[in-house]
């Protein structure tokens, strides 16, 4: 097992509320890990702590990114953690709306290849950049809409741009936040197939949060269950489904 992402006693308080309560996990680079839990369980806060958007009240985060070493990234700013190899896709579409799909991905590539300070080269005529971006579009099935302005895409395509952006930086780990949010069943199917394919064809480790339990069971090698900020289960799909604490948490919430 190679740990690609790890937290130790990660904690985040908001005043009297404890949104993430001493969570310790190790995410294996070979596995697809899903995080589930009722609403308000702390999944988004957990993601924000991992990506650097929030600082923890206590505890630490470790990332094995580009350097190949497991580094302590606690408290680093988001762009720094992103540069080290952690990428994130959002629940609500968070693209560069006024730019074309191709340009969206180009931005990611420019950042990854550390070219954002280049003042005089012309990016339109840069074939290497274009090809790298188009490769990502091919991976995510967006080649046909490359020149379309992101704002004008269908919801499903916008979700794909979301994924494309998070992959375009060649990350070690991608955090997907409810990738099938707002999708109809056939779009969700497509997304699931896409994630499976990407997991097989790239070196990137996928972590996702989801409400769609069927999807989670189909796609995950490991499931983490959060409830009121605490990690109440950590195991294979079978183990987790058989876990009484998990059923109590979900059933209890439904009242």
């Amino acid at each position, binding site marked *: 097992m190679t740990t690609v992402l790890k937290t130790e006693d990660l904690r985040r308080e908001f005043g009297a509320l404890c949104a993430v309560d001493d969570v310790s996990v190790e995410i294996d680079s070979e596995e697809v890990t899903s995080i589930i839990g009722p609403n308000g369980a702390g999944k988004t806060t957990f993601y924000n702590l991992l990506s650097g958007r929030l600082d923890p009240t206590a505890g630490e985060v470790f990332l094995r990114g580009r350097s190949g070493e497991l580094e302590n990234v606690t408290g680093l700013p988001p762009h720094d953690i992103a540069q080290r190899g952690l990428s994130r896709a959002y629940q609500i579409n968070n*693209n560069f709306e006024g730019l074309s799909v191709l340009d969206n991905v180009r931005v990611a590539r420019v950042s990854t290849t550390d070219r954002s300070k280049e003042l005089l080269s012309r*990016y339109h005529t840069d074939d290497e950049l274009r090809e790298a971006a188009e490769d990502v579009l091919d991976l995510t099935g967006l080649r046909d809409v490359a020149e379309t302005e992101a704002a004008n895409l269908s919801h499903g395509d916008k979700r794909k741009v979301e994924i494309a952006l998070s992959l375009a930086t060649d990350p070690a780990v991608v955090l997907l936040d409810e990738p099938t949010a707002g999708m109809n069943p056939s779009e969700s199917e497509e997304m699931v197939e896409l994630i499976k394919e990407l997991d097989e064809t790239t070196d990137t480790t996928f972590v996702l949060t989801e409400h769609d339990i069927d999807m989670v069971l189909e796609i995950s090698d490991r499931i983490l269950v959060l409830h009121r900020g605490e990690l109440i289960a950590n195991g294979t799909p079978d183990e987790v489904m058989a876990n009484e604490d998990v059923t109590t948490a979900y059933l209890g919430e439904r009242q």
Partner: protein
Amino acid sequence: MSDETILGLPARPTALAALAVLVVAPFVLPTFQTYVLSEVLVLALFATGFNLLYGYTGLLSFGHAMFFGGAGYALGIFLRDVAPSLPFGGATPLVAFAIAAVLGVLVATAIAIPVGYLSVRLEEIYFAMLTLSFSMALYTLVNQNYFGVTNGSDGILVLLQTSNLFGFQLSLYDRVTYYFVILLVVAPAMYILWRVSNSPFGLVSEAIRENSERASGLGIDVRRHQWGAFVLSAVFTGIAGVLVAPLHSSLSPGASLHWTISAEPVIMTVFGGPYSFIGPTVGALFYRYIRWGITQFPLLEAHWQLVFGTLILVIVVFAPRGVSGLLKWAVDRVRGNGGESA
């Protein structure tokens, strides 16, 4: 801005054609019109430099006069106090001007570095307010003559002399000669700005404008990038500032540093359209020529603010992409390109 086109026309031929027109113009136009065209060139640089920060990076500065006027004042003070004692013989006026110009741009840069650092930490309205306050603080300092060198509200005269280069007389105060000085500086400067706008740096700027949080999530140090854009914008504004001072033969706080001067590139850019490279230039053209046109009709002249205000209102409400957006839309229609709405 996937622009390697100008208003929907291919970039290179259009730019070269425009340049050719600009080179020939002073030989066919009356002297006054050459003067007006000189102003247009300077204003175009001012507005395009400003737009590097606004249209491309999404930061609205209400204080660009501090670079425009600050650079101009540095030039003016140098020419007044230091130039007379320079030892370059007949070539002194030209050399003095060159040194003063570089000095002016350096001063603008020196102001931009700390101001930019502090300002980019703020969002939107607060960024605009902070740049406004720095600019008005400078205005007040110059207007009250706190440094003792700015001559308060009366301002400074900026007069260029004749140089004697190897027996050849070069009168920089001659309108046609100075026009070519301006063109010689503005053309390459605009080209560089164009390259910057179409560079990876420019693309990242646009990403930051669209969604700074996402840009950050992709690994971009947003604050640092904005700071860089700010300083670059100030440099080109400073260049415009040193060019305009001798053109008007004078500097004063009201004409160089007041917030109404900071408003000019804003107006021009909104007019012309902030989302294309050529927009601000189109805006500068309209701005200057409408003002000239208005002077031909005394009734309108007395009400130029009303005319401008109404035009801006119409543009903001009905044509957010400005005049250049409208022009591009028209060109696309004529050429049968698919296009986005104006």
